[in-house]
């Protein structure tokens, strides 16, 4: 459904997307995960025909996003990141307008259905300018779903929603994703983990990892962290622990509290304890913290070269 080959985008001399490759099939929900400025929005804007790639090629539903842009646009539902809406219209007027542009059959029914799905029926006659951020987000989502697109491209779809609504929208996306192709971007790992079949981690315009959320986590599960707490401010501990075999980094959390990152699969706790006690610091606590998906993400996007292999 979505095929991306060596896609590159430059803004002037700045390389925003750097030769990325990926594909997404029907029935797949692909998560685009990356820190600010990674190139997620840029990639999505290319896929929706808003801007052309500098190099490389992308096809959606078999049509080239640049040369057959109109065909692509007919088949895509897009929720832009900033959720632009015509604020001078009511929700219903706006959806009617978009429905007319999209040539939606049985428009009135579809609008009712979609408003129901994103729970905005009670706001149908409210001016969009009077809606809260979360409601606007839902209107944007309704607009993207209205014409039953084969491909849905959602740029941070759950941002600004309340927790209950986040769950509902995730379920909605999961549901829609069963027989279509969904590509969504997010900063939230649990979100990607929750709804995506596949996660692409992008950083500085490059894809640094690509896998199912579970495998991604398993692959890196060995990387560990240990937390220690000593009496006093622990001057000198930093240097003493950093030299230990297996330790990759020591971070000071607060006075007397440190976090030790270790290479995957190495238990450094006995040695850490020994060093601290021998060094004369009062060991108050030594705790295994493990590694969360958040850390994996941070690690991947920090030193992408190491992990990509």
């Amino acid at each position, binding site marked *: 459904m979505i095929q991306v080959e060596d896609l590159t985008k430059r803004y002037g001399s700045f390389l925003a997307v750097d030769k990325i490759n990926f594909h997404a099939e029907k029935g797949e929900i692909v998560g685009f995960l990356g820190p600010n400025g990674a190139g997620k929005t840029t990639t999505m804007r290319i896929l929706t025909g*808003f*801007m*052309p790639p500098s190099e490389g090629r992308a096809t959606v539903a078999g049509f080239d996003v640049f040369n057959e842009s109109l065909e692509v646009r*007919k088949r895509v539902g*897009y929720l*832009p990141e900033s959720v632009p809406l015509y604020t*001078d219209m009511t929700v219903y007027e706006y959806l009617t*307008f978009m429905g007319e*542009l999209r040539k939606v059959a049985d428009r009135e029914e579809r609008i009712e259905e979609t408003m129901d799905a994103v729970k905005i029926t009670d706001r149908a006659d409210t001016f969009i300018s009077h809606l809260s951020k979360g409601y606007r987000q839902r209107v944007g989502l309704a607009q993207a779903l209205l014409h039953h697109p084969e491909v849905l491209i959602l740029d941070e779809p759950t941002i600004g929603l309340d927790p209950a609504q986040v769950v509902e929208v995730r379920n909605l996306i999961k549901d829609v994703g069963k027989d279509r192709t969904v590509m969504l971007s997010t900063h939230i790992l649990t979100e990607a983990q929750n709804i995506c079949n596949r996660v692409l981690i992008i950083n500085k315009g490059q894809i640094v990892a690509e896998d199912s959320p579970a495998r991604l986590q398993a692959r890196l599960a060995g990387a560990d962290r240990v937390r220690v707490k000593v009496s006093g401010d622990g001057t000198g501990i930093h240097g003493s622990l950093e030299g230990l075999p297996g330790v990759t980094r020591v971070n000071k959390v607060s006075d007397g509290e440190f976090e030790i990152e270790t290479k995957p699969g190495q238990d450094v706790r006995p040695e850490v304890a020994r060093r601290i006690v021998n060094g004369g610091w009062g060991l108050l606590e030594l705790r295994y913290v493990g590694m969360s998906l958040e850390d994996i993400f941070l690690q991947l996007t920090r030193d992408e070269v190491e992990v990509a292999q």
Partner: protein
Amino acid sequence: MSNLWVIAKREFAHYFVSILAYAAAFMIFLIVGILFFINNWGAAQQGSPPDTRSMFGPLAFLMLFAIPALTMRLLSEEQKTGTLELMLTAPLRDWELVAGKWLGAYAFMLVVLIVSLGFPLTLHMLTQPAGIEQGPLWASYLGLALMVGAMLAVGLMASAVTENQVVALLISFAVLIAFWLIGSPSSLLGGWMGNTLDYLDISNHFYNNFYRGVINTVDIVYYVSLMIVPLYIATQFVSSRRWR
């Protein structure tokens, strides 16, 4: 419904909830109405026949100010608020977007012109059985409608250039003033240069012909070209977002 109409319909409807549009229309009717009344009152006192030109002169001139104000937001706002992203990713050709906006604005201005018919019609009733001269009236309306269409295209073009409405207003005002005055030095220059400048002048085609009841193909071609060229340029500006 074609995309063109969908866009035009939305823009047209927008003017009816826009305070700016009401304010502009109100100013036009107020100024034109006062001048129209004073002139014809004076004419009646002196026993001269009623004349509708006293309305078309100021009406045409006021368009110079009204049209930039009414067109400035058409594409600027879409760029500023990001809704252009929505339009450019909808299955809609760029020219349909541009032409649709123009058509919506044009429809609104035609409503304004139709309402302004109230002045000459009132005069016509008051001066029965002689009434007013019909020829110049309808020719002036035709000329005005054509000129307004051209001016709207210029305003829309300015609005495609920038996301700043004030800048769009200033650009379209500057371009329109330039077209309004460009024929002035023609008598000094003479020859083919003078003729060219005369031809380019947006007001000449109106005041020298339609206003006097004369309908020429040349003038119609001029105004239609002045609709097409700016609309084409505006489309290029919108499309250029896809190349950059």
